[in-house]
């Protein structure tokens, strides 16, 4: 189950198949056109900016998810949604609507998130709990932490400076959030492509044994991956707090499944070792446009959940298949 499977390139098929990023981009454009046909005004400038804004939160959460999934060995972080929620709750409580508290609030929220990621990483590496199971269990623990911390009552308020940073219009009537997403996205690409950590991550994801034998510190890389995943989730929680200004107890929970789906759409292999953040960002946009389209079509929350599951299944069968026993 956890053996790193190195996908052999599928000759003949890859010859005509467009890259996953291009494919996902095409799907996004197609969805927007479909939306415009079904409901004129769907592709209006303001509406598109709005969709991008919703996509940004997912995009930031999915940075960490991309890192963890590239690390391979069934790596995934299901606790990102809950961690983002917890981070927003801590942030709002410490900020209490005062600009002077922004730095300690963000620092504390990110520190707690990183600590949760550290526990995930230790559980996955030292205790070898399968990542899916470990991070699923962590959801329960973080939910428990939230209840213990808040007593079931979310309090506090975003600082005005944070809100204007996230919601304020900068250029071309685009909210600051989109520039923050761009910045964090570039940071993610730099982290994955231009740092020792990034190289180690791809090495570990492609073949853990080979990485170990060539001197890569496998466990340290993996633990750092989970810490980063939780930290980016925490950051997304803070951004979400700036957007909504006040929090509720399940603020970011619903990002769990889409964060995994965005990574898969973006062409990062669930087996690890292959992928990148650009695809994930496009994947986040595709999913958000799809959600917008479903909302426009007046499809209720229950059916949207079903559609999300089916979309992930279809994507997995396009990209995530395992080798045949016969080969």
């Amino acid at each position, binding site marked *: 189950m956890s053996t790193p499977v190195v996908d052999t390139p599928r000759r003949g098929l890859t010859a005509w198949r467009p890259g996953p990023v291009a494919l996902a981009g095409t799907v996004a454009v197609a969805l927007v056109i479909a939306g415009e046909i079904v409901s004129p005004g769907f592709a209006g400038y303001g509406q598109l900016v709005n969709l991008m804004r919703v996509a940004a939160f997912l995009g930031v959460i999915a940075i960490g998810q991309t890192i963890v999934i590239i690390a391979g060995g069934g790596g995934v972080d299901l606790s990102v949604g809950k961690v983002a929620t917890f981070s927003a709750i801590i942030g709002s409580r410490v900020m209490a609507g005062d600009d002077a508290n922004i730095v300690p609030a963000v620092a504390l929220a990110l520190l707690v998130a990183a600590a949760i990621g550290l526990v995930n990483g230790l559980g996955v590496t030292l205790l070898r709990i399968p990542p899916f199971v470990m991070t*699923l269990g962590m959801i329960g623990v973080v939910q428990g932490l939230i209840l213990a911390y808040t007593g079931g009552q979310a309090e506090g308020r975003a600082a005005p400076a944070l809100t204007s940073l996230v919601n304020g219009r900068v250029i071309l009537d685009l909210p600051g959030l989109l520039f923050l997403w761009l910045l964090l996205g570039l940071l993610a690409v730099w982290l994955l492509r231009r740092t020792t950590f990034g190289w180690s991550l791809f090495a570990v994801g492609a073949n853990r044994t080979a990485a170990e034998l060539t001197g890569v510190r496998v466990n340290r890389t993996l633990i750092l991956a989970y810490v980063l995943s939780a930290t980016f989730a925490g950051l997304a929680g803070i951004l979400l707090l700036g957007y909504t200004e006040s929090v509720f107890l399940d603020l970011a929970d619903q990002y769990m499944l889409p964060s995994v789906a965005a990574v898969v759409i973006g062409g990062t292999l669930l087996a690890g070792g292959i992928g990148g953040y650009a695809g994930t960002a496009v994947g986040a946009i595709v999913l958000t446009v799809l959600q917008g389209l479903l909302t426009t079509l007046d499809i209720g929350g229950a059916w949207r959940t079903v559609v999300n599951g089916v979309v992930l299944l279809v994507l997995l069968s396009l990209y995530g298949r395992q080798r045949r*026993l016969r080969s």
Partner: protein
Amino acid sequence: MTGAAAGLVDRVRGVQLSGLATVAMLVVAVAVNSALQPNFWDSYALTSNFATFVPLVAIAVGQTIVVLSGGLDLSLGAQVTLASVVAVQVVDGSLDRFPLAVAAALGVGLACGALNGLVVALLRLQPIVATFATSFVFSGLALVVLPTPGGSVPFEITTAYRDSVLGVPVALLLIVALALVWLVLRRHRVLRHVYAVGGDADAAYASLVPVARTRVWAYVLGGLFAALSALAILANTGSGDPFVGNELTLASVAAVVIGGTALAGGRGGAGGSVLGAIVLALVTNIIFFADVPTDYRQLVNGAVIILALALAGIPALQKRRPSA
């Protein structure tokens, strides 16, 4: 050859050790629980305790079969939810329709299990991710079938479920029945194939074991046990709830781990998982009777589950093999 033999001895010893550990945990849990809950051994308390154990025991047996086949079913909790809301809509408070509701629940379990099995075995998706995806399909459908908690189960069923026969709680008899079903299955060819596939799929394939078909069977059996779990929940609570199974998925995995079944597949059995499920249920009891403040209960419960999952990793920690 000697290496392989030593490995085998090691393996057998590992299973026996964890079996002993499971029983030890059960004894400790029972001891702590009976110390905290003054009337623990009264027939009323026993009956209502066992009544809450059955759903977890049933889903744990189902999860065991899937895990033994080398997979993992993260959609089992959602299947419990879907089967229970379908059954409660079918029965609609009438005893006459109860057999129909049982059939409907089992049908749902069968269909969900078959879908999972086909996705995993034929499309060859990673079991964890595939069942994660299908879990959203199932829980979404459950919300379509029953958007808000409601529906009612005939009182004859709920009364019978909490009754006792000759002083033995019906719920305990149901747990024994589940264990017996497991023992019967265990002797069947399908389960032998499940062990073979979970142990080494390539070797099983080479030995003409129908690997794909066996995998489908494992998920179907998992779904059927999820359906039984759903019926037990309905009999226990008397009404439907479209979120009822959410917590059960992880608990089922934890029960399997506590029961000494290796998550890698091929080793273990449902007997341990039954005990593991009871241990977990007792822990929930203990948290309640230990006067843990309400706001901290979930935290303690979550931490206990993580610790239980960590137990599976401790032998790995001792051996200090290079990381997997």
